[in-house]
């Protein structure tokens, strides 16, 4: 087993952690989260405009393309702190799109997208389809070569924040049967091409994308000899960032529950004195601590071949199980109030269900881990 994987941190990561902690706390109080849930786009455009200049979108972008030249290791604390305050923005979607370009783009493509992203432009990825398969290679969308470019046809699901995005990275089957990844400028898409999906996490925005013979030029194709590696990389990066979101949300979910257990009285006692409530809350907290150790281990070892994959999958499994349990109990422990829309426990429970549904749930990752770790 991963005997050599070790937790650690970088100085830059700790700087990001404290900067993001402050920023997200100030910019995303719960009343604001609630208000944004009602909005069409789901995020605060003014806050998003501040994130560009802070340099957070460029953390993992190489310096030669206008970024900071660090890695996802330093992105993790930012995402963790955003999720802790349930702050939504196109940050995660943009980070994933940038990762695809960093890995599969040529110099021209990188120059075109990365400096702008580092400055604050949003992008997203369109990889899932209606078959609901977590295997990103199982797709039906096609790319047909046509003289000077490609014609893309198919339906993509769970495209995050596409209205904010300037580009969307689309996966499609090439005529040879292998997969190609295309940089599609969103202004090439018609209004009817996009439908907002109704998703269980109402703090997030997700869309279905109808590609009806959308034409992109040849330069839109990322190196298609690397497609499988890119998809694998996006899969792991997305799960690393999901683990960060789940862990951050778990922390505030537990804080929220503890707060209620320390104020609500029944039978003349604070309900937190009842062990039937106290002990499961402690179990959630213990799980959260484990999740955080696994998250920062995954962040620190992300670039390690093999070890990185094991660490990411373990982090996602534990974080998903933690938030699911913490939020499930949080609903129960708020009694009648827990059943209401106003109680924040539902936000956390919905977040866990949604993030489990994307890029593989706990059972899926355990199967992958079993194949990696349990050689017959």
């Amino acid at each position, binding site marked *: *087993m*991963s005997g050599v*994987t*070790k*937790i*650690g*941190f970088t100085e830059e990561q*700790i700087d990001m*952690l404290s900067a993001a902690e402050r920023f997200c706390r100030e910019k995303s109080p719960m009343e604001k989260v609630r208000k944004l849930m009602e909005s069409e786009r789901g995020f605060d455009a003014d806050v998003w405009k501040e994130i560009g200049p802070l340099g957070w979108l460029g953390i993992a972008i190489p310096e030669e393309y206008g970024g900071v030249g660090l890695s996802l290791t330093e992105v993790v604390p930012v995402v963790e702190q955003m999720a802790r305050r349930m702050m939504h923005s196109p940050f995660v979607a943009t980070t994933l799109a940038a990762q695809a370009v960093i890995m599969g783009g040529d110099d021209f493509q990188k120059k075109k997208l990365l400096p702008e992203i580092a400055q604050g432009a949003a992008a997203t990825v369109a990889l899932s389809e209606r078959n609901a398969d977590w295997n990103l290679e199982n797709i039906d969308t096609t790319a047909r070569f046509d003289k000077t470019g490609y014609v893309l046809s198919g339906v993509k699901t769970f495209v995050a924040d596409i209205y904010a995005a300037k580009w969307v990275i689309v996966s499609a089957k090439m005529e040879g049967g292998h997969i190609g990844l295309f940089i599609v400028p969103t202004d090439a898409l018609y209004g009817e091409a996009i439908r907002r999906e109704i998703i269980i996490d109402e703090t997030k925005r997700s869309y279905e994308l109808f590609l009806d013979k959308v034409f992109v030029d040849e330069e839109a194709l990322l190196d298609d000899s690397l497609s499988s590696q890119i998809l694998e990389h996006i899969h792991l990066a997305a799960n690393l960032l999901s683990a960060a979101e789940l862990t951050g949300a778990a*922390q505030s979910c*537990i804080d929220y529950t*503890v707060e209620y*257990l*320390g104020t609500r009285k029944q039978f003349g*006692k*604070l309900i*937190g*004195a*009842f*062990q039937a409530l*106290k*002990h499961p*809350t*402690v*179990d959630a*907290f*213990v799980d959260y*601590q*484990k*999740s*955080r*150790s*696994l998250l*920062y*281990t995954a962040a620190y070892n992300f670039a390690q071949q093999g070890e990185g994959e094991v660490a990411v999958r*373990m982090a996602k*499994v*534990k974080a998903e199980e933690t938030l699911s349990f913490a939020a499930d109990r949080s609903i129960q422990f708020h009694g009648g109030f827990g059943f209401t829309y106003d109680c924040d426990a539902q936000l956390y429970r919905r977040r866990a269900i949604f993030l489990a549904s994307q890029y593989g749930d706990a*059972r899926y990752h*355990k*199967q992958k*881990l*079993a194949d990696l*770790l*349990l050689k*017959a």
Partner: protein
Amino acid sequence: MSAEIAEFEKDALGWFAENTPGAQDFMLPLTFMEVGTNQQFEFLRDWQRKVYEAGYLGAAWPKEYGGGGLTQAHQDVATKAMKAHNAPIMFNTIGLGWAGPLILDMGTEAHKQKYIKGILNAEDVWCQGFSEPENGSDLGNAQLRAVRDGDEYVLNGSKIWTTHGHYAKYMILLARTDFDAPNKYAGLSFFLSPMRVAGIETHKIRKLTGEHGFTQTFFTDARIPADGLMGAEGAGWQVAMQTLMYERNAKGGQAGGYSITEVNPLEILELARKAERGGKPVLEDPVIRERLVDFMIEAQAMRQNAGRAKLPPLNQDCPQALPLMSKLVMTEYMREINQFALSLQGTKAGYYVDEPNAVDDGYWHRGYLNAFSATIGGGTSQIQRNIIGEHALGLPKTR
């Protein structure tokens, strides 16, 4: 890691490679609470002395009292080397891990001169007299009576579940010196007490495995020297709490080594490789595979928790959380993984220790039953949850 530490580690690895004893014709205790026969006791005592004399135990304790006078980093790599070679446990845990660091932290010069060396070379075995028949989890309610009489205290009452009670020369003892104190805690005092004095008797108790283990200790007008008092009279509760911090690994300063053999999930994997169901290896069963992965994740989380505990920037929100939870997490994991190991054995799960057909001579059965020693001893898992809830999360107290 400095070159000096690296060199020390290399030497330690070499030493343990050469000196770690192989399998014996009797079962070696997996935990310090399991020592039940004289054969086991003598073996572990010799082994501890040998490790100490080689310089791999108490390496960070002061030289003037018998320690190695080196740093914690030295001891840490030595302990790691023991683990790497699956060396037998350091059984004098109550001395090495709890009483020793306490004495070094708050004992008098005379205490340090008198006790530290004997703890390290296993000459002096220590036991702990906290629990009583009527007061276990509610330790603060301990009733054993200690009355001052000149230079002595006179003890009356009984302690129970005393690990190593019949081998011990000394006991850390929590007793009541004031029955009129304003609250139950304020009446307690803490002693370093001799065991071999008139009026102290130990009776062995048979444990769930069928073997003998801990004892009940009876005190009848037993006289002990008053200079064994640790801290002030009436301050026993605070001293006991500090001892429990050492015991639960929530505070450092221990002599080193380990007192419990951890189960690595890879050992369970070996079991799963050997076992068959319906003619197929159980390792192909998806449910078993998922459970195995769960244990691997758990083991990884414990390892990385220990790592993160040493990285303050990743602990700012609740620095006491990881230390407070480590006992609960570790002991429950041990119980569950041993239990799972039984479920891999098919009909053979019905065998027990000493049965020739038993898997691994009944190692897992013994491991599972003995695992409760740690989920109950040292404060039960339920009490640990109370502590984490109240001290790390600030939840209201349960009364």
